[in-house]
């Protein structure tokens, strides 16, 4: 059984990752539920933390506290890199707006950062999959 603290951390990660995916990749990330039929939309604005917490408890029932914490740390690191790439993009836009770089340089930076963000999301997805959290991306 996971402690409330770990469950809360997992919920926050999942919701923030869902929001990030919606903003950055324009994708809807949903969590597959085993017992109940259907999925849980992580990008849904009306989603309450309690619903996600119930789903997390249900899905991570057989996992140890250490295992969950280790994966969450990994995800946290990757998410930090996504934030860095997003910041870099905004900084480049700012520089372009102020005329310090030209449009081709801005484009190059954007492409590089977008690639980094896509890679990190893929890694996060496989991390969560390893933990037993199946992410679905409905088209």
């Amino acid at each position: 059984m996971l402690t409330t603290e770990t469950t809360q951390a997992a919920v926050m990660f999942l919701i923030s990752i869902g929001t990030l995916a919606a903003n950055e990749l324009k994708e809807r990330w949903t969590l597959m539920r085993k017992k109940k039929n259907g999925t849980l939309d992580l990008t849904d604005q009306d989603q309450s933390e309690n619903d996600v917490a119930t789903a997390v408890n249900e899905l991570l029932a057989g996992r140890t506290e250490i295992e969950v914490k280790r994966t969450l740390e990994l995800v946290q690191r990757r998410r930090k890199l996504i934030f860095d790439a997003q910041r870099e993009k905004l900084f480049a836009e700012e520089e372009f707006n102020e005329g310090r770089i030209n449009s081709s340089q801005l484009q190059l930076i954007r492409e590089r950062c977008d690639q980094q963000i896509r890679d990190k999301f893929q890694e996060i997805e496989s991390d969560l999959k390893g933990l037993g959290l199946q992410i679905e991306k409905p088209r």
Partner: protein
Amino acid sequence: MLDDDLQSLIRRLKAKIIRHKKFKLDDEEEYAEGKITLAELRFRAEKHNAAIDEAENELQFYLEQSQESPSVEVTLNIATPKGYEYVDRISANRHRLIRTRDQQEAMLLVGGGKSYLVDRYAVTCEQFVEFLNDICSVNFAHVSEDETQICADRHGKLIAVASREPSRQSGIFYEQKRWVCSQSWRMLPITSVTWWGAVLYGRWSHNVSLESQDQIYLLDSNEWLNCAVHDFEMTLYRKYPWGADWNTDAANTASYWARKDIYSYQALQSLGFHVKTNFRLLPVDEFANWSSPSGCVQMIGNVWEWCKNGTSPHGNRRFVKGGAFNSPIEWCDPHYLSDWPVDRPSPYVGFRCGQVY
């Protein structure tokens, strides 16, 4: 609304959008770290989204307005200089023109109390050959008879040297009573031209009498610097034409070639270069993506460019700016000043025309 006001408003709105995006990012990070609740995150996100939407709507409106600004207004305010044709307006402070005599693209830059009219590219071999043929046909200049292919004006002042000697190669030749340039050199900048040659070319291309004493269509070193690094729209100066940091891929300098594979002598010969190093001239329109804020291409690298002034007004030397294809980084700094004797043609010195209009 004036164009300048409109542009500054657009910039401010763009900055506002970026600022709110940054705030959103900070909030998301705070939530992920457990510093704020989900409800708080959503409340803040709503606030930022509303601000972003509002700014984007406003921005859209002003962008449409700026595109609708009639170019007639510009042409009315700025009379097209004699000998040029107006092409289009690139931005509020930059206009594109074509010089009718040699079909050279020029930028008209407005701002900072002065207007500059400067060539977008350095003068090419093809353009210079046309000039030489023209002035030779009216007997203003003559070619030496001893096969050294030197062109001088009627007062004996040297204009250019065309030599097949590898070390002084310039790409132009005198063959069958005409000046010609080899095919591979057509778009390369003219070199081995004296300061006097550059001055005469300026007069010829502007349809001004070659004998007129006071007309010099070259920029002085400060004006050249303005055209290279001054952003007329943002009223700020860049360190290099393309931005704040040195970029080896942005200009034809020694550092550009340092990263390239070394060509064999035969390969270079097949390209028309009789040199034993990898450094060489590149066409004047290369590196157009790394142009200066004014739109001028290759202000740095490829060839040094003659300036109007020198350390002493009556001295025998004039400033050259920008560095050449074999110059190290420190010589390619836009602020670096070097000078060269007016009557000595160099395979590293070319020019572009310009004037304060």
